[in-house]
């Protein structure tokens, strides 16, 4: 039985649109890193522009949802939690965008030995983002089932940590100049930060889900 009126339906579409943008941002981030690692700079710049657009879209939708929730006094009990969720989720796509833009600005030279490590790190961070988006969608419908998705976010964040740690050890154990090593570590850290942000949001979401449970 659909109980949505048009205005609530629009709001629901806006929230879905926001989460779509974040999920797509995660995929674009991974593709962007891989394009850079493959040396396909044209494809990489297209991804940079795409993630920039997605980040703007997510920002706009987040603001629209916030305004709508306050104007119509909707979900008074969970309004703060939902707005907190949107705000912190927005920071993940922000972080992903910043990370990709740093590649574009600084153009780090990544030796072939480390490319697979960076690629796997980007994969893990992107997966953490995807799982987080799934968890957020579940929060709106079935808070009891959110644990499975939150578990996956944690899993990918651990994986990203492990890959990043191995990558940094391998970089610092190699023959590169110290400045180059530090430069590469900086990029590893920035990619890893995406999964860290996803984990932070997941931790908040776990609390929100407890508050939503009946």
């Amino acid at each position, binding site marked *: 039985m*659909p*109980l949505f009126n048009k205005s609530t339906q629009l709001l629901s579409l806006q929230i879905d649109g926001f989460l779509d943008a974040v999920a797509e941002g995660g995929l674009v981030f991974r593709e962007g890193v891989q394009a850079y690692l493959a040396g396909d700079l044209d494809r990489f710049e297209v991804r940079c522009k795409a993630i920039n657009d997605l980040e703007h879209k997510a920002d706009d939708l987040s603001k629209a949802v916030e305004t709508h929730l306050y104007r119509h006094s909707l979900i*008074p009990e969970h309004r703060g939690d939902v707005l907190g969720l949107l705000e912190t989720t927005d920071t993940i796509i922000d972080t992903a965008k910043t990370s990709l833009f740093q590649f574009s600005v600084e153009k780090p030279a990544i030796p072939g030995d480390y490319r697979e490590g960076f690629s796997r790190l980007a994969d893990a961070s992107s997966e953490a983002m995807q799982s987080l988006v799934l968890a957020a969608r579940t929060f709106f419908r079935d808070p009891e089932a959110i644990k499975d998705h939150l578990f996956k976010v944690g899993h990918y964040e651990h994986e990203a940590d492990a890959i990043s740690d191995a990558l940094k050890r391998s970089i610092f154990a190699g023959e590169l100049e110290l400045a180059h090593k530090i430069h590469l570590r900086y990029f590893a850290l920035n990619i890893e930060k995406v999964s860290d942000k996803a984990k932070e949001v997941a931790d908040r979401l776990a609390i929100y889900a407890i508050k939503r449970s009946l």
Partner: protein
Amino acid sequence: MELVLFLSSGLFMGWSLGANDAANVFGTAVGTRMVKFRTAALVCSVFIILGAVVSGAGAAHTLGRLGAVNALPGAFTVAMAAGLTTFWMTRLRIPVSTSQAVVGAIIGWNLYADTVTDTRSLGSIVTTWVACPLLAAGVAAAVYVLLKRAILRRKPHLLEMDAFTRLSLLAAGAFGSYSLGANNIANVVGVFVPDNPFRELHVLGLAITGAQQLFALGGLAIAVGVFTYSERVMKTVGSGLLHLSPLAALVVVLAHSITLFLFASEGLEHFLASRGLPTFPLVPVSSSQAVVGAIIGIGLLKGGKGIRYGALGEISLGWVTTPLVAGVTAFVLLFVVENVFDRHVYRDVSYRVDAAVIEKLAGEGITDPGLHQLRDRTRVNSERLQRDLKRGTKLGTREILAVIDRSQLGLWHVDPAVVARGLDRDWFTPGQIAAVREISGRSYERRWRLRDDLAVVTSEWRPLPATKLNRIRNNELELKLEFLEQTFLVRPLDEEAGEDGLSDGAEATQRAPAAAHGSNSTSSR
């Protein structure tokens, strides 16, 4: 002018009722911020007025509880006392039962007027304090568990759930407000119907009766109470006792309505009994106590830690205090009105046990040798007769109340002019109207003589055996008989009038029927 003054106290009571009782229907919705106060107040006011005007029509035939008070200045004072008590409780943010304030104030009047109080009405108040919250708590816990299961199965979107809860709270609030208006309007203005200053109006071909205009005015008074002063009690109900989720807010409203429906609905009892199904016991219930009970039920279901027991204690104290304060206030105000403003706040009603009364009682299975010792002496109030009956007989409380009722003296004249004007055809059956025509012109000094005569003419005026199936029919019959008694009452008979020599059933000189208040049947029967 005097009537306007008297009416003002009824309207004040309506205002205080609106200020306090709106919390029962919209308190949880406003307290959980699901419905804005202004929206709640608007919906509540509109539906209260609708309920008062549309469904309160039945109240045109009843004076409400204040009908027990047999003089208009007394009714004014009793309404004022009940209104003041409810207002005080509202200031303290405590949800109380306005009906209990009215009953308390009437008991104050009974004490002042030396009229016997039916102790069953006191017993029912005490029962309501305990049974009603307990039942509502159980119902709320059950509803909560069922609703939770349904939600877990269906998994609605948070926004969908929000829309559903909001809509349900508004709908339940609107229905509750309609009932609030329909059920309470008799208490607010019912006693003024016989002296109604409003005349029938025709607007766009629609006839609006004087009673409906009076009810609209009463409904408006309740609505003003909702708008101006109900937010305080709403906050207590909505968030003062327990932090409620919107879903719990909905459960409270549903549980409150279900409790009232299951345990107070004679219609449901009749429906079940007529199909050979077990019925729910009918117990006295109150909206305010049901709502508080439902909130506590949810709190206990969640472990009981979130309940603010201090607030609960204050509310319980408020419940006990309300009828007591109303009674004392009424007593003091009656003294002031009678002695300072020189207004008679009650009319004397005399009682006499004679051979006819003893025979009538014997027919009902009430016999006691002591009754003969009390014969043929007129008592100036029911309190004295009760004292003599307690001293001189071994009758129980119920029997004593029956003796008092049958011994009441008065003059009831079935005025042919009133009969000719016609009785409400929508309410009385053709057989009942024909029976009233048959006895037109007769006078009675005992109420039960009038009843007996009607019952002789047609079985439609005879009560059926007291079973669950017959309860509605018998209650309706009782209401109609009380209406006739009020309509045909010329005056309560004091000792001298009793010696006028009017013989029961004899033709009497045509007298103009007095205003339809004079029976103290509620208190003495």
